[in-house]
């Protein structure tokens, strides 16, 4: 080796030395911010984002204008004179039927519907899913299949029978009735979600807890529950947004003074009498959509993690 190096000309030696310094590619491959790939990728993303944000922009801008300015017809131009009048009106003065206390009534109705429905449906569905995943009782598979098939039955088919059932029980038109309906209809998808999540947990953990003497509820509350935060977040998001955005059940199973926010919004926006107050309508719509929006923003990361953990395995 040493002899070979000595016999080399000084030129060759220099060349070898130069191949060892930084001139050639080495280390991390450099990335250019303005490569064709990046321009294409981010260009597309920006265009799509603008496309989806444009309606929101129009809504916000319109809701901040007065009616004379709206009549000019420049829907994309920013407001010349910012006014919060439409927001105040939408929240507390807009009329639906005989009530003129704005969306606030619908908001509190929706809260009183959503909170108990979410809690009740998740409490039942998580225990369902846990029992189906870990306590394989006789007929568990059949039960599960029936539950899943339930998820595919169109709601419309069941509306009238449920009206009769609620009437017979004597809770038709009450918030209690609607809460029960929401809880029942959330059951198939939530049970599936929880069952799959609990199935993906190591079976030996469950066995160890049984050897340790924990029973059905002991294992559920002390072992399974503390390990399943992500899937609970997913379930809460699904239910909050689903129930908050529901229109059909709200309009069918409640009375005008207990209408949820969505139904009330519809009544404000679609009222045929008088002037169409676009600014109030826009403000009312944003107000109604605010709750699901906030839920998504706050819990985005947990949501993705939970979906990935719970939804894949069958």
């Amino acid at each position: 080796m040493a002899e070979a190096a000595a016999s080399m000309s000084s030129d060759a030696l220099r060349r070898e030395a130069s191949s060892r310094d930084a001139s050639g590619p080495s280390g991390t491959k450099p990335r250019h911010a303005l490569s064709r790939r990046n321009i294409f990728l981010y260009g597309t993303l920006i265009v799509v984002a603008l496309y989806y944000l444009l309606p929101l922009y129009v809504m916000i801008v319109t809701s901040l204008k007065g009616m004379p300015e709206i009549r000019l017809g420049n829907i994309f131009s920013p407001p010349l004179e910012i006014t919060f009048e439409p927001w105040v009106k939408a929240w507390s003065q807009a009329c639906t039927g005989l009530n003129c206390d704005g969306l606030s009534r619908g908001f509190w109705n929706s809260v009183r519907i959503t909170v108990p429905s979410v809690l009740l449906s998740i409490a039942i569905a998580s225990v369902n899913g846990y029992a189906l995943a870990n306590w394989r009782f006789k007929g568990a598979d059949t039960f599960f299949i029936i539950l899943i098939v339930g998820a595919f039955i169109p709601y419309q088919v069941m509306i009238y029978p449920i009206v009769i059932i609620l009437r017979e029980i004597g809770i038709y038109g009450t918030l209690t009735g609607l809460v029960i309906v929401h809880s029942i209809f959330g059951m198939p998808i939530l049970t599936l979600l929880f069952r799959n999540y609990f199935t993906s947990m190591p079976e030996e953990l469950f066995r160890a807890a049984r050897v340790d003497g924990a029973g059905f509820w002991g294992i559920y509350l002390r072992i399974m529950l503390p390990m399943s935060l992500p899937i609970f977040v997913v379930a809460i998001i699904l239910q909050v947004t689903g129930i908050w955005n529901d229109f059909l059940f709200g309009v069918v199973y409640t009375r005008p003074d207990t209408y949820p926010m969505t139904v009330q919004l519809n009544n404000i926006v679609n009222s045929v009498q008088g002037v169409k107050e676009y600014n109030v309508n826009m403000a009312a719509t944003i107000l109604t959509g605010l709750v699901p929006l906030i839920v998504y923003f706050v819990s985005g990361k947990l949501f993705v993690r939970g979906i990935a953990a719970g939804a894949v395995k069958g």
Partner: protein
Amino acid sequence: MAAAIANPSVSIQDLSLNFGVMSVLKTLNLDVAEGEFIVLLGPSGCGKSTLLNCIAGLLDISEGRIFIKGKNVTWEEPKDRGIGMVFQSYALYPQMTVEKNLSFGLRVAGVPKDEIAKRIARAAEILQIEPLLQRKPSALSGGQRQRVAIGRALVRDVDVFLFDEPLSNLDAKLRSELRVEIKLLHRRLQNTMIYVTHDQIEAMTLADRIAVMKGGVIQQLDAPQTIYNRPVNRFVAGFLGSPAMNFIKGHLEASDAPVFKADGVSVPLGRYQFDNEGGRAAKPCVFGIRPEHIAFGEAARAMPFTAESTVEIVDPMGSDTLVWTKLGGQILSFRVEADKTLRSGDAIRIGFDPARASLFDAETDSRL
């Protein structure tokens, strides 16, 4: 099989387990003596873990009875059986600290606080996990986790320990370390232990008796040395021992001095101990001899049987060397010390004592 044990710690009587039409365990009987270390050994799918889960009460059995400490526990819940169990994947509760993991079962059972503290202190001392008590399982290494899992069985103060492949998730070095620890633990506690594994070295080193299982049936239940030296059938013979036993097909020639014959080889079986006299009848059979029982070179001359052969392949394994050759036209391997230098094609002399061999019926595979 083994004689009846007077006061068995665990007694399994005519146990069967079926999943639908599939029969997993078939009328199985097993008596485990007080303080005995029993290893259930077999390939995957042989039903050994299933049997352990049945003993633990985690699986409902189809037929038969299970007694622990003389009490019929066939229909009892796992917690009422007086067992502690250690799982392959450790199965520690991830959201609890080591201390809470250890105490969970005791808290469920409503054991008083000072008693819990006492038992945890004792278990932590035995397993040397005192510094880890406030940690979460995710902050532990594999070996530490398994130690905690053993501790969880320990604090329950039970009669019988069940181990379900506890070392299979560990690397080779840790496995041998923990194996020694489990052995010391058994010596110290003197509890009955039932240990499931597919690793024959664990079985040989730990067990008082080994139950070799296949297809839901216990093939042989005996002391490790007996199973190693006198396997009851070809499956047991081939499953235990590494490198595996050599099998040479041939036939038995009956006479006053029986002889095993295969293509150009005849092995006198005068020194072979037949299981029963009926075994001496002429029939096709398989001759089994372990690689470590074959002598080579000068040592071979002293053996009752010797033969000339040539080396085919040499596999150095560090501590010793495995040499592949042929006998009677069939492949045969044997062990030599690592310092013996052999090359392919070398002419050699090998020999063995037929008394150390095993002879199997070619049809039934059982020992003659």
